[in-house]
Structure formats: structure tokens, C-alpha cells
């Protein structure tokens, strides 16, 4: 009896050593067969259990079972180790190598700025409006109180469409500002009005670092009862702080536009302007809607007042990102587009 149980410990030790020594999964399997297989040494030992006297069986059985469980646990652990080893690639992965990139496209910087502007205005109840880019003189000039002989109407400054035979089609032109949409919207809906109009506009300037015949503007229009210059200032300050950062300062200077009265130019001042060596930088034009414009669209200027303002999107983008040539926006060079 004693001799029989004495074999358990050495057999277990041998088996554990073989498991540990196995270099791969087949080797481990061989080691398992050697001890725990149906003809294995440990299995043979268990078979001898039946030859023991009845009163010795429980104790001996317990000893052998404990050893068997221990062996099986060791076997499983070693198998996990060897499986992991087998899963490793032949060559280790070099995590400093560049990965297989999946490209995300980007929105054009003008779109990004426009979206920022639209988002700021929408926070305060504005909605986006739109109108045609091919306009007529009425919506682009007449209704906006532009004098009949104003230079802006010149073929020098404004693109007119050719009619049949190439001659100028007097009433069709490319809008020179988004303000024409003010007229279209007010003619269509009754006050109050609260719109913002981003869009393309056209001026007959040769392309250079600061001009492109096509560019983008945003127009804001608010018409309601009792709207004042104070409201205009409050909204402009809100929007520009959203756009240019909370430390931005805004200044209003009297100016002249035919469709607003009083009219102002807006300067702003921030770390950006100081970096450009200027305390104040002109950024937008604005004013209280001229009563003549209200009369033109059929609003009673005694009841309604309002303000409008507009600015160039390229200009904002150029200031914000430090872009020095407006033509870059229209070349779509990926080295440019990727930066925003």
C-alpha cells in the first residue's frame, strides 16, 4: 500500500516537468499522453486503485484525484501559454511602421467658416435663406435704394449677362452682394424676419491676392417692432465673439450704404489683429434698414424697424487662418484643403 501511494508524488513531478518542457502544442500533447493518456503512467496508477483494500480506497482515491486535478490544471495553463506562442507571427509587428490609413475627407475652409457663422446665428433664432445668383437690377440695386447712376451698377464693376447675339441683357446680372435676398425674402413674407444668407457673389475684379471675381458673403437681416441700433450692436458682438473668440472687441464707425440709415462699418480687435500689427481691422458693414427699402417691399417703416449686416467669408477665413492669397480657396490644392 505504502509503495503504491509513494509513486504518486514522483509521477506527478515528472509529468509537470514534461508539461513545462514541451516546446509546442504537439510536444505538450505527447506529454499529456505519456501521463494522462489511456496508457499513460498516471492513468495506470489510477487503475491500480481498484486493487486496494476497501478501507484504504477513499484516502488513496483522494490523494490521486488531487494530483490528477493539479496535473490537468497545469496542462491547461501550459496549453494557453503555448497557444499564445503559436499565434504570434513569425516576425514581430513593428508598431512604428505606418498603419494602413483610411482617409477622412475634409470640408472646404469656406464651408467650415460658413457653418460656424450659421451656427452662431441659429443659436439666436435666425434661419438660413437663399436666392438666385443671377439677379436683376431691381433686386440687386433699385429696391436697395442704389442711385440710378451709382458706380456699382457700372459694367466696370458688375457682370452682366449677354443676351442673344452677345449684347448685354440689361436686367440680368450676377448679384454683387447677398443683400438682394433681403428684398426677395421681405417681398415674400411679412415681418418679423430673422434670416441669414450665405452665398456666392460676384464683382468684376481681376483675380489677385485679395480679389477673386467670385467670393462669398453672409448677410443677416432682422426686422421686428422696436429694433434699435443697440440690438444691432448686441447681435454683432455676440456673433463675432462666437466666431473670433470671447476676448474679441467690436467697434462701430459711421459709414454710408444706400440701403441702411444710419450705416456703420464694423472693426474688430483681438489677438489676431494685433498679430497682423493692427489694433482694429475692418470686418463688416451694417446699419438700420433704410425706410425707403421698407417702402419698396411694402413694409410700413413707421411700424417696423430692422437692421442688416454683411461680411465677406473669405476675409474672415483669411484673418482666422492667416491665409495670404484668396485664390488658394479656388485652386483646391489638397495640400491646402488638408490643413483645415
Amino acid at each position, binding site marked *: 500500500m505504502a509503495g503504491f501511494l509513494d509513486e504518486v508524488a514522483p509521477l506527478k513531478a515528472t509529468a509537470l516537468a514534461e508539461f513545462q518542457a514541451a516546446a509546442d502544442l504537439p510536444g505538450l500533447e505527447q506529454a499529456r499522453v505519456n501521463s494522462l493518456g489511456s496508457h499513460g503512467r498516471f492513468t495506470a496508477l489510477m487503475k491500480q486503485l481498484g486493487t486496494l483494500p476497501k478501507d484504504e480506497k477513499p484516502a488513496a482515491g483522494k490523494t490521486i484525484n488531487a494530483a490528477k486535478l493539479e496535473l490537468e490544471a497545469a496542462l491547461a495553463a501550459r496549453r494557453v501559454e503555448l497557444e499564445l506562442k503559436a499565434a504570434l507571427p513569425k516576425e514581430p509587428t513593428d508598431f512604428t511602421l505606418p498603419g494602413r490609413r*483610411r482617409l477622412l475627407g475634409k470640408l472646404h475652409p469656406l464651408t467650415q467658416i460658413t457653418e460656424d457663422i450659421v451656427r452662431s446665428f441659429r443659436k439666436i433664432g435666425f434661419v438660413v435663406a437663399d436666392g*438666385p445668383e443671377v439677379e436683376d437690377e431691381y433686386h440687386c440695386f433699385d429696391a436697395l435704394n442704389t442711385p440710378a447712376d451709382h458706380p456699382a451698377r457700372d459694367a466696370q464693376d458688375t457682370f452682366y449677362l449677354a443676351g442673344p447675339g452677345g449684347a448685354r441683357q440689361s436686367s440680368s446680372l450676377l448679384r454683387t452682394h447677398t443683400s438682394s435676398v433681403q428684398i426677395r425674402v421681405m417681398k415674400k413674407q411679412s415681418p418679423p424676419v430673422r434670416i441669414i444668407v450665405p452665398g*456666392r457673389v460676384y464683382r468684376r475684379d481681376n483675380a489677385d491676392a485679395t480679389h477673386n471675381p467670385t467670393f462669398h458673403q453672409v448677410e443677416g437681416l432682422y426686422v421686428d417692432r422696436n429694433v434699435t441700433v*443697440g440690438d444691432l450692436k448686441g447681435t454683432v458682438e455676440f456673433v463675432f465673439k462666437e466666431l473670433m473668440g470671447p476676448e474679441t472687441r467690436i467697434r462701430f464707425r459711421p459709414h454710408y450704404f444706400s440701403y441702411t440709415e*444710419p450705416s456703420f462699418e464694423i472693426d474688430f480687435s483681438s489677438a489676431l489683429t494685433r498679430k497682423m500689427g493692427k489694433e482694429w481691422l475692418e470686418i463688416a458693414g451694417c446699419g438700420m434698414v433704410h425706410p425707403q427699402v421698407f417702402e419698396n417691399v411694402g413694409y410700413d417703416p413707421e411700424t417696423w424697424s430692422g437692421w442688416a449686416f454683411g461680411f465677406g467669408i473669405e476675409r474672415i477665413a483669411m484673418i482666422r487662418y492667416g491665409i495670404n492669397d484668396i485664390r488658394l*480657396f479656388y485652386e483646391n490644392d489638397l495640400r491646402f484643403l488638408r490643413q483645415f
Partner: protein
Amino acid sequence: MKVTLNWLKQYVDFEWSPEVLSERLTMLGIEVEGVRKIGGEFEGIVVAQVVSRDKHPNADKLSLCRVNEGKGERQIVCGAQNFKAGDKVALILPGASLPPKPGSEPFTIKVGKIRGVESQGMMCSPQELGLPDQVDGLLILREDARIGQPFAEYLGRSGTDVVYDLEITPNRPDLNSLIGIAREIAAITGTPLRLPDVTRATPQAPGSKDHGPASTHSVSDLVSVHLEDPELCPRYTARIITGVKIAPSPGWLSGTLEKVGIRSINNVVDATNYVMLETGQPLHAFDFHRLNAAPGQSCPSIVVRRAAEGETFRTLDGQERKLSNSALLIADETKSVALAGVMGGQNSEINLSTVDVLIESAYFNPQNIRATSKKLELRTESSYRFERGVDIGICDWASRRAAHLILETGGGVLADGAIDAYPSPTEPKQIALRHQKVKDLLGIDLQPEQIDGYLSQLELKVVGRKPRPVGAESSLPEPTTFRIPTFRVNLKREVDLIEEVARLYGVDRIPATPPRGAIGSNPFDSVHDQYAEARRILSGLGLFEAQGQTLISEAAARLVSGDNVVALANPLSSDMNVLRPSLLPGLLDSLRNNVSRKVYDVALFELGRVFNRPAGQGTSVAAAQPAACASGGATGEERRLGVALTGPRAPVFWSGGERDAKFDSYDLKGILEEFLEQFGLRGITYSRRPESSALFLESATIHLGKFQLGELGQLSPALARQYDLRDAAVVAELNLDMLMARRNSSKSFRPLAAFPPIRRDVAMVLPEATTHEAVLQVVKQAKPANLESVELFDVFRGKSVAAGQKSMAYGFTYRSAERTLTDTEVNAAHEKVVEQLKQKVQAVIRE
């Protein structure tokens, strides 16, 4: 408009620094575009006298001098030879700098030793001073030069000044004058405006002194004025000065003009220019003897008339000008002498032999002057002012002022009186202002007295006040009526007065009120969001957003469009002479921009408008567009989506068989499929075009039911070459208005499948002409039970497949939402499909 600080101070007192003036003008609405300090040159350089000149103890060619600079004597070492004791010279003192030579740093003088002897300054040559005098050695000054006098003063360039370049908005012609600017300053400082003296040209009491010799002539004996077209010339004044000596202007006059960029000519011309700058009223001086009388008449007559059609006139710049009937001329009885309001004539200009001068001060119709100036492409200081509208009320005063200056600088005798042809004098406008309206518009609460006070400072006179009813609320209307001075042509209605109040009160003092008020509404608002959504999907698919030019060349437009291109009447160049009929030419330009700069992998999209002259009105699309962009015009505007891909499909990678793959039509189609599905468009079909076109090598139109959405394909190799592309390009364009109108972006939840799928694969050989769509059509018509999806997973040709045939392998997934399917029932359904494929598209099943 240029003004100087010292000049302004002649008309109004203010104590502001040059910087503060700049700031105050800006905040009044007069933008300061440039500030230039002048004078201040030759600082630290004084007139000095050489007291003694001895040889330098250590150098033969140098001399050692004692020099008196007014405050004492200095020891100076000098290398020049052309001077002696007693000469007066320009001495620069230590610490001062010589005028800088262009492109170099200024040279600063220090006390230093020259060959062992200290020199306490330097005597200057004209070259060192930057003066033109040709002297070898020192500049020797006149004997009467005062010792210690600043050298600048000696030169007559004394005094510093600041020149401001102001941007005057077109509504304020009154600010194109020194007095106009000074009036604004007076208004905000509350100090009085000081107008210059015109007394010498004002009728005198008999026997008064100091006003030159009394005239023996009355102006009406010398000349008459006849206005043929009072609409174009409502007022014309003339004064005559006889016996004037034409000479160079005195320094103060020529100096003042030169500071603001006007070349000095002679005393008479300078006087008229000076008064133009001072008052804003352009004047013209004629040589009176060049004006001819009509035959038989003793005195000449000035006729203001329209030019005859085709009449020519030589302006004083020597140009022969051909005029139309719309141009206005100043003429005598025999010839024309000036192009009214624009430029005088050579035949009557002031010259050295002029003795009698006629001063014209008139008002010309702004639109007419503008039209003439534009037609002749001749812009002058005079036409600039007339076309913006001068002060019709100031003609006579300006004429007197000019006469005064001519008498002062050229002597002579002023003929008595003046001709003032002014058939219907302009009545000053009157405008009523309700004080409550100031508050309503500006949002500030000002006392009526304050408001009236501001306006009075601008020389608006209260002419009437409706008395406030006893015990009335202050909110009741009680307008004050103001008389508007004639120089304020921009004040037309109540709101214009409110603007003046805002300016004088100070816009910066109006408190900002936080945003408030109504919520807006506009049908376009949702379109904007749809744009944003489309952009988000496309950029997520790896495309970069492009913005192309709207204006392109007609040649480029012809690539994609027929005869419906919209052309400009006045293009800048032939590169930009039509509106884009498609986004593709712009995208191709962008591909070229990148490839030519060696950026070869380019994937771009653009959302934008295109323009076409509608051939046949009323396509089925127009009505369905959400907030269609074109309303009314004859030009069709359509929103489109364009995509262009060229070059490597994926970023560079260092391993793998597909790494060199280039974008092809299937990449493009995959992008469109994903985009359209994500955007809410299902049931899209593609129809191959049988022929190549100028644009496409191979292409297909994209359809949704009966609507054609757009086209995609591979760019023709000829075009790819024309656009300098290295690799094949694939491009697509879709009608975005239609996509937005047709999309269904509503989403609803479908329960997740709970039972397992069963898959059956089938590989078959088909004739080359049989399309994938044809296969799917057969499957769809067979309506196999429980078919969940069909997936094409392989297409190949060659090897065991005969020529003209191809092998296509499909996976069919069957699944029921209610139960686990059995092999038997799936096989039954699947065999039915396979049978149909064999029959309908001649599929040969591969085992």
C-alpha cells in the same frame, strides 16, 4: 481727400494730438486711410558760422575749426576745402541723424576723435543733406542766414505737419473740403468754425482803405453770362480781376498745395485750387482776353451750352476730345473754352502773359458731369467733386474767396460786383424730426434739447416747433422742423437726421442689447441642413470638398454643355466669360492644379450651382425642387454635386498586392452608392451609354425611376491629356436639387433577425453581354421564398471560361423572421432560382 493738421487748425481750434484727431475722424465716419508726418527733417541741423579754420595737427588734408552754432562755439574737424572763416554752413550736432539715403539706415553723428582730435559735430555737404546743389565740399549758406536757425527753417521747409488721407463716403460730398472736415470737428468740440477772410472781394463802403485800388469797372460792363441749359448748369457766377501779375505762388500757398499732393502752377491757378480744397467748390480761371466778343459786340459773353454732336475740343492737357450732345461746354460767342466741370481749354488757360482773369464758380448737374467724365475717361479733382454734388449755395462765397487770394498774391483790381446767373435759386430743404423716433431707432433716451443741440452744431437751423399740447405725454409727436444747409445734400428724410444724432452722440456710447425677438422662418433653412448632411457623408467617404470658380471659359463649358451656356456681356477675360453649366470643368481644373504640383491622389467633391439657359421650359424636375434657387429669371440655376477622382486609390502603404491600385469607375460608383443610400435614395439604376463622348470614354446615366439624376464615368483620355493628368480620372455629376426632392430620409426600426440564415452559393458562366442587373432581375422575378439578400462575390474571365463568356459567383442568403429554416425548404426555393437563371439568361452552372 488729403488734409493737414495745420491747415485744419486755420478753421477750428482743437487740442488733439495727431493720433487723437485720427481716432475722432474715424469715429465720425471719416475713415483715415493714411497718416504721414512731414517736416521734422533736418532735425538737429542748424545754421552755424565758421569762426576760425586751422590745420589739423596730425593730418594735412583735414582742418580744425571753431564754429559758432548760436548757443556757443564747437570744435569741428573737417575734410572739405571750399570754405573759409566767416562762411555760414549747415552744422549737424551730435545725436542727430543725416537724412537717410534710400534703402539705408540713417547715419547718426557722435562726438568722436578724428586723428586724435575731438570733433563735436559735422559740417555738411549738399550730398550729405540730400540736396541737389552741385558743390564740391560744404554747402555754403547765404550771408543773411541767421546763426542758430534750424536749417529746415532756413530752407523754407519749416514746421512739422501731419497729412491725413481720408476716405470720404459718396454721400458726403461736403467733406471733400477742409471747411467740411473742420465743421465736423467744430460740431463735436462745440467750438466755432472760423471761416477765412473774403473782405477784399466784398463790396466796400466808399473811401475805405486797405482793400486795393478801387475799381473803375463793373463786371457787368465787361462780360455777360448766358445759360442755355439751366438744368445742366443751374448756377454760374463770374468775377473779373484786372491787372493781375502772374507769378509763382508764395511759399505758404505752394507749400500747402504740395503737402496734399497738388502741383503748384502759378499764383492764380493755385488760388483756385486752394479754394477748391478749402470749400469743395471747383473753380476755373480764364484768361479774360482770350474770350471773344461776338462780332459787333464790345464785351464777350459766356455761353453755357451743350456740345454739338461730334464737336471737338482741346482740353488743357493737350488732348483733342470728341464730344457728344450730352457734354456741357463753356463757350464764348466764337468758340468753346472749357469742358464744363471737367477741364479747361488750352485756348483760354492762364499763362505768363495773362493780365485779366475771369473766375468761374458754378454748379453743374452731377449726373451729367459723371457721364461726360466717364465717356471721355477723364477724371479730375473738379469732375470728382461735381459728380458727387457740390454745394450750390457756396458758389459766390468761393468766388469771393478766390478773388481775395488772387488780389493777395497777384495784385490787380477787382471789377465791381459779380455776375450770378442763378435763374431758380434752390430752396433749402426742410425736414421734420420726431424726437421719439430717435429713441425708437437708436435705443437711447435723449432729451429733445440735446437732439436739437447736436443738429444745430451741424448748422441745421430750427425753423419750426410744434408746441407740445399742455399736459401732454412726452411720447406724443412734437416734431421739430429743421432747415438743411445746402451743403448737406445727403440729408433727405427724418432717418438721415437720426443718423447725424448717432454720429455726434457717438456710436460707441450706444449700449448693446442682447439678442432678442422673433424666431425666423424660411424654406431654405432645411436645404442648408441637407447641404451640410451631404457634405458630411462625402467627406466621411474620404473626399475633400472643393470650391470652383463660377466663371469659366466658354471652351471649357462646351465640353459639357451644348448651346445653352450663359455668357457674360462684359467678361474680364476669355478665361472667365461664361457661367459654369456644370461643376465638372472646375473639378478638372482642380485635378490639374494638384497633378501639376505633383499631388497625384486627388478625390474631390463640390456642391454648387450651375447655370443654363433653359431650352425647353418646365422639365419635370423644376416643380419638385425644394426652395428652388431660381425664381423668375430666364436663367436656370440648379444645385449639383460633382465628384472627381484620379490617381492612387488609397494612401501609400508598404505591403500588399492592391497597394498600387488607381481609382477606377467602380471606386466612383461605390462612393456614389454609399452616398445615395446614406442620403436616403434607394432604387437607383445605372444605364450604360453605348458610345464614348467628348467628355467620357465610358459612362452611364444614373436614374431614379423616370428621373435622370446624373452621369458617371471615366474621363476621355484626350481630355485627361488636355488637363495634364497622369492617371485616369473618373468623374460624376448629379442634380442635387433632384436628390433633395426625391430623398426619403425617414428612418424606422426593423427587428433584428432572431433565426439563423442559410446560405447557398452559385457560380455560373454567362455571356459577356449579360449584366449583373439582368441577373438580379431574374432573381427578383423568381420570388424565391425567404430570400434575404443576394451578393455578387466574384467575377472572372479566361482560364476555363470561354472567350465572350464570364463567370459570376453569387451568394444567396435565406432567412425567415418566424422560424429556423430547413435545408429542404431552402433547397427547393434555391433550385427554382437557379432554374430560372438557366432559362432566362442562359446561365451554365459551374460545379
